[in-house]
């Protein structure tokens, strides 16, 4: 097994149980992420949020796309689907529509969700499918070696913008709100307590809820832009993140290494896809409309 791409690290004999042993696929730990990557924090925060939200873990599913964040689905011990690049949201939509009893969480990166998967993102928000979408934004395509992303601030250097990025980036919070998300927030990997609370609210919120997590990528984003280590980026978040709950989303765009706004931006009521479908079908079909009966192991909830 000398030519394996990923060399498995032998598991050390250690009798101390991992504090999150029940929630992680321990046979997959240690994970593949770089030292000082923000993704471990995001996984921990998500597990804490799931615990707080008190959903039955047997009726939860995690879907992710491709990329560094795409690996999240593999480490959380829930039914999970590691899909193709950009398609996490439509897979999650199929899951939710076929078994409405499930609580479906999408965890993926900025490039996956809003680059290749941008079309699915805006349409799922428009339909208001009952999904919680967690977008880990590290401003770069990291898994492929650090290319420019739809979120890269100008003029950050990436491997495909060696002279500095000049295309305007997405303001993801504004995009999500404009497309109809019921809950929109942004936190960083530093704001752990607030992030957990925000994720919990997002999980509990009916409809398309969206949490953007700004996370450090030390290996590519920080190194190419000479921003130091992941720890230096955390310090930067500490000094420059301005907490402004309820801030209008058009004002929360992110500039390169400038102070930026975090907070809970949007929390509104809007009928979900299921609400609207049920109402319309009942109005026109009456008793001929048959609610969804989930698989026999799950009870119907539509």
């Amino acid at each position, binding site marked *: 097994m000398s030519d394996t791409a990923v060399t498995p690290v032998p598991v050390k004999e250690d009798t101390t149980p991992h504090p999150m042993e029940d929630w992680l696929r321990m*046979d997959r730990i240690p994970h593949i992420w770089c030292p000082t990557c923000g993704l471990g924090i995001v996984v921990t925060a998500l597990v804490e949020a799931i615990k707080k939200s008190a959903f039955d873990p*047997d009726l939860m599913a995690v879907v992710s796309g491709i990329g560094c964040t795409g690996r999240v689905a*593999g480490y959380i011990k829930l039914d*999970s689907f590691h*899909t193709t690049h950009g*398609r996490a949201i439509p897979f999650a*939509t199929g899951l939710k529509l076929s078994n409405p009893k499930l609580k479906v969480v999408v965890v993926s990166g900025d490039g996956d969700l809003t680059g290749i998967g941008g079309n*699915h993102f805006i349409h799922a928000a428009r339909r208001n499918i009952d999904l919680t979408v967690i977008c880990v934004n590290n401003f770069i395509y990291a898994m492929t070696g650090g290319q420019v992303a739809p979120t890269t601030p100008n003029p950050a250097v990436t491997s495909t913008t060696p002279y500095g990025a000049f295309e305007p980036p997405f303001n993801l919070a504004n995009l999500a709100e404009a497309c109809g998300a019921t809950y929109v927030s942004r936190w960083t990997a530093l704001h752990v307590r607030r992030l957990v609370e925000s994720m919990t609210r997002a999980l509990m919120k009916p409809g398309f809820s969206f949490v953007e997590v700004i996370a450090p990528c030390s290996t590519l984003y920080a190194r190419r832009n000479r921003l130091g280590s992941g720890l230096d980026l955390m310090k930067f978040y500490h000094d420059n993140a301005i907490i402004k709950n309820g801030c209008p989303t058009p004002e929360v765009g992110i500039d390169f290494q400038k102070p930026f706004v975090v907070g809970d931006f949007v929390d509104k009521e809007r009928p979900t896809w299921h609400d609207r479908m049920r109402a319309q079908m009942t109005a026109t079909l009456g008793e001929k409309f048959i609610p969804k009966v989930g*698989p026999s192991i799950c009870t119907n909830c539509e």
Partner: protein
Amino acid sequence: MSKRDTRYVCLRIAGEGGEGVISAGELLTQVAARLGMHVATFKTFPSEIRGGMAVYQLRTGPDRVLSQGDYLDILVAFNREGYDRNIADMTSEGVLVHDFEPGDNLPVKRRGGVDYHVPMGKLAREAGSHRAKNMVALGAICELFGFPVEGLTEGVRLKFGKKSEKVVEVNLKAIDLGAEYVRENHEIRHELHFSEGDGHARVVLSGNDAVAFGAVAAGCRFYAGYPITPATEIMEYLARELPRVSGRMVQAEDEIASIAMCIGASFTGQKSMTATSGPGLALMSEALGLASMAEVGLVLVDVQRAGPSTGMPTKAEQGDLNLAIYGAHSTAHRVVIAPVDVEDCFYQTVNAFNIAAKYQIPVIVLSEQSLGFSKASMPRPDFENLDVFEEQYARMPTDGDPWPKVDELTVGEGYPMTPVFPRYLRNDTGISPRSIPGMPGMEFRATGLEHDEFARPRYDPPNRKAMLNKRQAKFEEVRREYGEQVEVIGDDEAEVAITGWGTTAAVIRHAVTRALNDGASVKAIFPKILSPMPDMAMRHHLHGVKRVICCELNDTGQYANIIRHRYGANVHAVLKDRGVPFAPGEITPYIEMAIKAQVRI
């Protein structure tokens, strides 16, 4: 050449849009089916469509209608244009029923045949509405060709009864006037006659309806799709039907989302389907790879149209065979089946769901524009005895009955053995036990990454080989189950064989049946499944055959190449790629030439 089988009649109605051409044709088809006749229709368009020309063609006979035949027997022309644009397709002995003065200076002269003039417009106004012109024509058809007028009047009542009694009256009067006019003014000078029905009522469906109907019957309860001609009607049918049977349908933002949603739905144990045409299948190719890798079954219907790109969306072609079978990155197994006619659309769709559920594999149903758009009669399916596969999920182990044992390879160095559900367990058949979300203790991670039996991502060579073998074993299992499903008609010892797939197979059957009646030594070979090919049976039936004719509707001989490279057969490809299906008469000369060893191999 053999004598024409006069028991089959091919009739075309042509006129302006708005003259009721389509509704008359559909009424005739419905009634014929209800009376137990076999009928198949063809929506055809003259090369130039101007002024909203409408054409409806149907062929009926005492047995399953395999093709539209070679010639038009009867042309009912509502006006001069209807005559001018369609007369070239008629036999010289054909019967013309028209509504223009016989002395008109016609640009296209007929060399023979019989003409009947029926003043349709005038009689319709007499009946009470100029819009009843089509009914006058139907009345005349009944009188001229022995179509049961009682069936037609009942059909009118069923069709217009909901509107008002007045409409029914006008239409019935128009039918009477048409029939009466023929009785009083014409002597029957032809031999054509509709064959009688056998009294077993049949349903009339288009190929697209039959696919959707079959899907619901097979237990499909989730559909996601994106509009594309000529597949859209499948989505429209399911949008109406699924909410009534607890199913859900969503029109996705694109084809990629469509198949992704279907894979998501299948992951929860729901039987799901999407339908598209060639360009959509190309977009779905990546996700098909995931379905193969994560072993999620689903049904993908490709109603082929003439391509590439936008091509000719309303025209027929069998051009997606290569894309369906080979359009994969790496080794992504998918099953490909192709229905031959409308009835087959229903049963092959049911079959596709069964294969998808049983083998946890994506199944592509290759339908065609000429099937999707055309209506035909078929016996009402026997739902009681329909073979529908229901998947059994894995169960939590009990003390005396532990998880199935995985082998040492999976445990592997550095991969601790964990008491988790072996979702991708390797066994003889390659079909592993499956759980769905919501089953406590049996959660797993479906992934497009190469994985081991516990669904853990693994890149090491032994595991890769073992898992590839596992998926291949499953594919071979499909081949074993369908391996004998090759239909052969004709002379088993023949040196000449003819083969084809999809709608062309039905036309070949028509041509071969005629050739056999003439005493020709030929056999036709039809594989029931195109991927995996039933190699054993194909080799057996091709053994001793010196020349093989492969007919298909594309310009490169995609199927012919498969027959060539898999069986080393001497293949002469008969290709047609003009947007219209084969007529049996186009195939017959090749059979004759092959028998005389005149075809070039």
